[in-house]
């Protein structure tokens, strides 16, 4: 796997398509255990990213990730803005200096993103947040030796589905206590779209 500047731009353009397509679905999930705005916010933030990336001249993947982070942070709002912003900012720092980004460096970047978001959101695995998708995906990358698109999608999808059985203890879903069980976490779902987009972009590039 090699992630180039162009790949990384395509990654976020594709992720944006998914956020737009699933805007209503994400909002519906958030209506069940949140405040009905996750789809609206993610669609707004990723649209800004998609508007911006093709107009800029990026020297490195790190620069792309940094711009994605800053845009999400300032345009998504809510909790998702700073959380996704933190992930991509940490990732940007971790992959700095390697272009294109190889598998090991990318894995390291994902892990740094995960560590950062856990710290920022004061959340750990099993609290029904996007950490429950990012943690298994990071493990999956660490076990592998190179990029396997289908397995990535499967890992992220299973992790997303598994949030259904968790009782939320962080984020707005926590107010629903045991009633949060039985609903998929909206943040885990938007994270799944991000990994699904990544898998598609890398698959196309091979």
């Amino acid at each position, binding site marked *: 796997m090699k992630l180039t500047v162009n790949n990384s731009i395509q990654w976020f353009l594709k992720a944006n398509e998914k956020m737009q397509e699933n805007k209503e679905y994400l909002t519906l999930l958030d209506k069940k255990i949140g405040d009905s705005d996750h789809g*609206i916010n993610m669609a707004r933030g990723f649209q800004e990213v998609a508007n911006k990336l093709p107009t800029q001249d990026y020297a490195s993947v790190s620069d792309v990730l940094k711009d994605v982070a800053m845009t999400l942070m*300032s345009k998504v709002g*809510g909790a998702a803005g700073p959380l996704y912003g933190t992930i991509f900012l940490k990732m940007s720092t971790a992959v700095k200096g390697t272009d294109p980004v190889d598998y090991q460096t990318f894995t390291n970047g994902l892990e740094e993103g995960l560590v950062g978001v856990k710290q920022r959101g004061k959340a750990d695995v099993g609290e029904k947040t996007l950490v429950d998708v990012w943690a298994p995906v990071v493990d999956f990358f660490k076990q592998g030796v190179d990029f396997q698109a289908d397995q990535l999608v499967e890992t992220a999808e299973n992790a997303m589905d598994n949030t259904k059985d968790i009782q939320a203890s962080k984020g707005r879903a926590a107010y629903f206590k045991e009633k949060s069980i039985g609903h998929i976490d909206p943040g885990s779902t938007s994270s799944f779209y991000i990994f699904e987009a990544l898998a598609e972009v890398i698959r196309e590039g091979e």
Partner: protein
Amino acid sequence: MKKIINDPNQVVQDMVAGMVSGFTKTIKQIPETTVIVRTDAPIKRKVGLVSGGGSGHEPAHAGYIGKGMLDAAVVGEVFTSPTPDQILKAIKAVDGGAGVFLVIKNYTGDVLNFEMAAELAEAEGIQVEKVIVNDDVAVEDSSFTTGRRGIAGTVLVHKIAGAMAESGASLAEVKRVAEKTVQNVRSIGMALSPCTLPAAGEPSFELEEREMEIGIGIHGEPGIERKQLVSADDIAVELTNRLLADFDFSGDVAVMINGMGATPEMELYIVNQKVQTILAEKDINVYQTFVGEYMTALEMAGCSVTLLGLDDELKMLLETASDAPAFRV
């Protein structure tokens, strides 16, 4: 959905423009932001007071900008925290050299965004302190979760911290009285009908015709229980008893009966009448009462009751002049 709007995606921009126009003597919008500040900001050697959060809670928070209360309010998308860059602009706009104090309602998004903004401001050499308001007794107070939500009691924190800052007190002094207020304030809400986010187009939750929800949050988050609608007196008893069970209010209190957005004042006064009776029966002395819309949830029908335990210092700060349009003293 039936609303007086132009474009569901522009409601916040349109509202902010409308909040400022016609009031340009006292407030202004920082260009290309949804930050509203006092026209006389920054005030030299006065602690700047900034609050904010998602919109849809009007008059919170922009209605509380004025001499004796907030210096700036940061307006987020509907029910969505504003972003760190906007909050940072508000902090910079009100920093008169004595530091800036942030009043944050306890929601994951608000806390994350305001904390990030505080870190950015500190990196630029501005002293920042904060208080996190968590007055909603409907939520279990647990260190393992996000904890209690900040609701209508936040307005009293604005008032008291604002009065302290206006007196020329230091950042540490402002923080001290704000923390004291947070420790002494408790609220609980209830709803009869839901609200609809303009961009979502449909209600964010459902309540049956004869159903109410006790303990509901100001974004429609779940409360303690849903049950058959009862009389105003019975609602007042339930809400007040839950507050009294959570904190020892013996002595003097301030009472706030807050409308959630679509509740006639008539109904708020009916609730107030019973709350006052209950407090009198318990020998709790009501020092000051506020009835009206202070912290709303779009067009949700319902109310919240807030009690604030007062000592002499808090009484004095509560009574000091404020020219904020939504809280004139």
